[in-house]
């Protein structure tokens, strides 16, 4: 590390790294090869065929995009995830601002309450949530899902945003108040623009709550096919014996690869947004 490492150490380090990288990437690479295989020939008895694409066709991708409801699922997922993002942003930032800036009775209790109820596993509240949504007439509708997802993001996002607001000096708002700014104005005009990195994280978390979820989506919107979100849709496809696995691989990659790219692109940004706000030791 400090000194120049010996050749033996270098060889060891590189072999660990290469093995690790293979471990990390191979499942995706395998799915990529399978997605390009002709027909439903999943397997190849050829050792080389496991590691390099010996044959390639876009047939699976074409089927997924045009003959299967993948695009409908995708549209549903995008709709649910983006509305969740917007609602969750509005709700959590304002609550976080209040928790950070106002002193009021029950403030500490509220913050602790948020953490405490988070420990109740989401799956186990699903029966009650489903009943509530049935009563409200939202069961089986995307709007019900949006409500459920938004509440699932409330705790973490509020805590994270509050942590970030705490780092913004309050003097700015006091100056604005002297100039005649009300609380809503100083929230919208001063605090929000300054909290942009944390806003990005909150938005991403809200989006991911709807984008990657399986349990809520498959229980609260069980049918029909045209209403499903993309993850439960693909899951049902992978588990049915009649659908070739190549279709699933192609459809799955069409979703997974963009998600990974966005993550890699936002990586540094994410880390700083998370560490500045939220949980500090």
């Amino acid at each position, binding site marked *: 590390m400090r000194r120049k490492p010996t050749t033996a150490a270098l060889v060891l380090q590189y072999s660990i790294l290469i093995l690790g990288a293979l471990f990390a990437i191979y499942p995706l690479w395998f799915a990529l090869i399978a997605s390009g295989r002709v027909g439903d020939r999943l397997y190849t008895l050829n050792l080389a065929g496991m590691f390099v694409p010996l044959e390639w066709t876009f047939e699976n991708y074409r089927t997924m995009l045009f003959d299967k409801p993948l695009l409908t699922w995708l549209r549903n997922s995008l709709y649910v995830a983006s509305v969740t993002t917007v609602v969750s942003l509005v709700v959590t930032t304002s609550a976080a601002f209040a928790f950070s800036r106002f002193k009021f009775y029950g403030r500490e209790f509220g913050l602790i309450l948020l953490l405490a109820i988070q420990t109740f596993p989401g*799956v186990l509240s699903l029966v009650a949530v489903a009943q509530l949504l049935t009563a409200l007439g939202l069961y089986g509708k995307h709007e019900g899902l949006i409500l459920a997802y938004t509440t699932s993001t409330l705790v973490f996002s509020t805590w994270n945003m509050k942590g970030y607001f705490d780092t913004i000096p309050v003097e700015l708002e006091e100056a604005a108040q002297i100039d005649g700014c009300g609380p809503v104005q100083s929230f919208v005009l001063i605090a929000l623009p300054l909290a942009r990195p944390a806003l990005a994280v909150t938005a991403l978390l809200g989006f991911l709550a709807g984008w990657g979820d399986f349990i809520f989506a498959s229980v609260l919107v069980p049918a029909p096919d045209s209403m499903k979100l993309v993850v439960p849709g693909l899951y049902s496809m992978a588990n049915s014996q009649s659908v070739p696995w190549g279709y699933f691989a192609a459809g799955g990659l069409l979703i997974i690869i963009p998600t990974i790219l966005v993550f890699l692109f936002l990586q540094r940004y994410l880390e700083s947004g998370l560490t500045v706000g939220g949980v500090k030791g």
Partner: protein
Amino acid sequence: MVSWSARRKALTILLFIGPTLIGILLFSVYPIVLSTYVSFTDRNKFRPNPDCTVFLTGLLEPLCWPQFRDRAPVGLGSPYGLQDPIFKNYADLLGTMFTPTALGSMFLMVLCFLPLIAAWVLTKRFAKLATPPVSRTTLWWGGLGLSLVLAFALNIGAAYNVLMDTGDFVVVVGRTLIFVIARVPLSFVLGLTFALILNSEHLPGRTFFRIALFIPWAASSLGILMALIWQFFFREQGTINQVLSIFGLTGMAWLKDPFTAFAAVVLVDTWFSYPFFMITILGALQSVPHDVYEAADLDGASWWQQLTRITLPLVRPAILPATVLTSITAFQMFGTAWAITQGGPIQSVGKPGATEFVIVYAFKQIFQTQNYGRATAFAVILFIFLFALTLYSLRMTKITKGAFES
């Protein structure tokens, strides 16, 4: 603190916090209350409907409220009522856990860990001394050896089997704890190894490996799809057996055997979770000053000594919260096990399968067996357990410290 007039302030606060409060009350607090109530009833597949004439049911079930009553599903099934005796669901879950034999077995198991605990206490005590009478390594190995000897002498296998026969609760929670104990250290060691290598400067291609090793975490937001791809490796006709057959070996049905199925779930979940440790440790390593190592080099400290005496203690503040967080997530893992084994393989009918961890068990109880009463009783016990654990870990890691002083 900004100060506005009292009435205006109260209104503003309500405006700001109202939506969050309503959301939390409806979708988090209310489910907990309803679940607690249902856990004392005999609600199941055949008795799904609320009996609105019972006072508490009428109060808690939204479908009993006048404005929603017409939305209640009509038709099959009879209404549910209170269990008789009222703790029956809990008793079924816990089974024979509190009989003398089961308690005795539990005591024996705890006894086996005593040498390890003693080793831990002694290392803490010796850490303050300048010249410890026994070195730390000796202590730990001694403790471990004694534990193993004790386990053998006390016939722990038999005690384990007794416990596994008591009821679903012990089986499921016990398996989940074993899963956490296997998975968290595994991802920690992997993450630490990669972080240490990636932290050295004399390494061309560092950025490439950093990105490649980070990919599983990026994919984990779509965890269930990735786990389905992984599942394909372990199938009877899957990739692993294909490779084996090329070398003339016959593979096995990896997901049909309890042990290998368990190992498969651990492996895949490690794949998802090691990058989190890697990133956390890498971040912490950046702040470790270089001159400390230079001084250690001059004093002739070995690589291992530098790791255990300098690096690990310095990055400890960052690792501790990460470990607690990962442990809690691992305890509530659902997607990986569901996609790979669906909780199976099941060895005997009516018993939880080998990879049926807590959330998988709850999910199956609710949506397959539809035994709501028992599932909610399980939820309530779990909630109490997790709540205590979270409060303890918050105190330990002081995550909330900054939040209440401002």
